């Protein structure tokens, strides 16, 4: 197991290295115009550009530039925003809690909705409840987060507030450490807005996966052993059926940590995604660049965790 994890970690490092190379090429080699100009803001003077060139080593040959760039990355230096001159790393870390709260909470919501609905559908295929689950899935899949968000805002914030019921706030973020209740109250609408689509797809995946597993020979063995139907489905069926769900969960949460742009914007959450939108619209390259690397980092980490979870869940993987 130890060797397995070590191998995965090593592989993750290699992947990150490749991504950093790709990002470097994208921003410093193939990007149009003088890369130094990208680091000094709008309408810079030639001296400023020269300064930036020296500062970022852009006067050096490309391979050397790349080594310097990797060196900076290894020190966690992602450069400075030219909008507010803040270190990009600090901005991203400051905004991570809001994004992580959103992603983590939404994941809990979509798991709690998607998996039980999938189980209900799979254990009685073609029944009324299976059909209702299909309706839920189709509905959920066809309502993107921004529509879901706006609907939630309209009904649960706007209409309720009109009636003097200020149950859910429209926007903002309160850190968990400051006030857990307010934290949850501010996040509950974004959680549901973001989770709906994913819950719909998880319900389908759980249904399909469980249906397939329930047709396996070892499920017949479990029944022949005289186990209760509950135990057959939950201990024997779900154990295998959830493996693809775990994989997806890792990737989905990893991806969301790079910023849930639409939801963050709709609900005014000061997260990584919202920050990235501002950066894109103002041409704040160091921030865009940092966000890309940051997101890639989480996706790679998520992949490693998924692989480890796989190995824990399924003994056959470990030997492979």
């Amino acid at each position, binding site marked *: 197991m130890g060797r397995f994890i070590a191998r995965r970690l090593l592989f993750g490092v290699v992947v990150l290295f490749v991504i950093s190379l790709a990002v470097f090429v994208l921003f410093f080699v193939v990007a149009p115009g003088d890369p130094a100009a990208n680091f000094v803001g709008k309408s810079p003077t030639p001296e400023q550009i020269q300064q930036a060139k020296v500062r970022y080593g852009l006067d050096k040959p490309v391979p050397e530039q790349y080594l310097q760039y990797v060196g900076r990355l290894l020190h966690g230096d992602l450069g400075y925003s030219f909008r507010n001159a803040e270190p990009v790393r600090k901005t991203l870390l400051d905004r991570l809690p809001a994004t992580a709260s959103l992603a983590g909470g939404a994941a809990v919501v979509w798991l709690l909705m998607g998996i039980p609905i999938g189980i209900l559908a799979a254990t009685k295929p073609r029944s009324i409840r299976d059909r209702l689950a299909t309706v839920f899935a189709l509905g959920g899949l066809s309502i993107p987060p921004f529509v879901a968000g706006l609907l939630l805002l309209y009904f649960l914030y706007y209409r309720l507030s009109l009636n003097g019921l200020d149950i859910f706030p429209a926007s903002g973020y309160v850190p968990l450490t400051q006030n857990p209740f307010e934290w949850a109250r501010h996040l509950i609408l974004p959680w549901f807005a973001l989770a709906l689509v994913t819950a719909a797809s998880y319900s389908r995946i759980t249904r399909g996966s469980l249906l397939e597993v329930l047709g396996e020979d070892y499920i017949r*063995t479990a029944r022949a052993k005289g186990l209760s139907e509950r135990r057959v489905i939950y201990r024997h069926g779900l154990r295998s059926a959830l493996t693809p769900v775990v994989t997806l969960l890792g990737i989905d949460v990893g991806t969301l940590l790079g910023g849930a742009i639409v939801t963050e914007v709709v609900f005014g959450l000061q997260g990584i995604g919202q920050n990235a939108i501002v950066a894109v619209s103002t041409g704040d390259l160091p921030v865009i660049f940092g966000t890309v690397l940051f997101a890639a980092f989480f996706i790679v980490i998520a992949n490693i965790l998924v692989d480890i979870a796989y190995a824990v869940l399924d003994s056959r993987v470990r030997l492979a």
Partner: protein
Amino acid sequence: MSLLEVTDLTVSFPTEDGVVRAVRGVSFSINVGQTLGIVGESGSGKSVSTQTIMGLTRGAQITGSAVFEGRDLLGMSQQDLRKVRGAEIGMIFQDPLSSLHPQYRVGWQIVEMIRAHEDVSKKDATKRAVDLLGLVGIPQPDRRVDDYPHQFSGGMRQRAMIAMAVALNPKLLIADEPTTALDVTVQAQIIDLMERLQSEFNTAIIMITHDLGVVADIADDVMVMYAGKPVEFADRRTLYYRPHHPYTKGLIESIPSSEGGRGRLKPIQGQPPSLINLPSGCSFHPRCPYVMDQCITEVPPLRQVAGSPSHRSACWLPVDEVGFGDDVEAQREKVAASRRGALATQESEVVPAVVSAAGTTAPPPAQAGPTDTSDNSDIGDQQ
């Protein structure tokens, strides 16, 4: 009194293409400590009939009864049936790899079986699991108990399945092709193991197989199934040396180097019929070398065959011609030829060629429609 008595069991699956009549009137009984072999080609309904008895067929229409120690398993609540499954009737399946849960340790799966029926501690149950693995011949059982199924060889997996099935000392063991997925040498070992356990615990065994050789090794009585129906019943020796039904003879003659085959390998022509559109009359008639007019129009009932009182066959050929040999063949040919009208002549010409099951079924004649004269009431009193 018999341990299990199945009477007129039918199982149909409604599907989009039509109703699949997988089992069409099966009756048999088995006594304590006895072995009943069920043989037949793939799709003849061997698994469906036995799994239905255990309540393991879903979405099927079931009629008939299966009385186990005085209680009808088919009429039982799921709750009660669960107490019978595993504890009183154990099951072993064909493919031991896919029949064990890949993500749980072998020992865990045996412990689960024990604890589902008995109130024992995990520790005691684990000790019993180790003993059981030792009993079925797994080396170093105290260590292998923590292995996953994929760490076992095919033969060991089937041994582990057997250990699990006999863990609670069931009165009946249903073994559904337990050796089909294994090497020939391992097959013999598994059969030996089952015989040993049987004599030790006096377990009754239903041994399902499409390999008559396995049945010849272990069974007391044999039921031959074709297209969801029993076509012949006999004790092992009678069945092997003095079969009556052409299908049984065909099965024996397709065993390489069997006595019956006398070195000549004669596979049965054609394919099993579609269970949605069954042939009229005897469902074996499109493949039968002796087909007569009666075979196409009337379903043969199980009739007592000359020689042994418990020998029954569902075939219209005379009941006093059994076994192999040129005399019997010639005699049968003569009878068949004399009872062959325009109908069957047409059919028998098709036989030597490879017959596609559904396509060659002759339409029933206009005046004499197929009459189901099958009456299984005389089977139940077997033994």
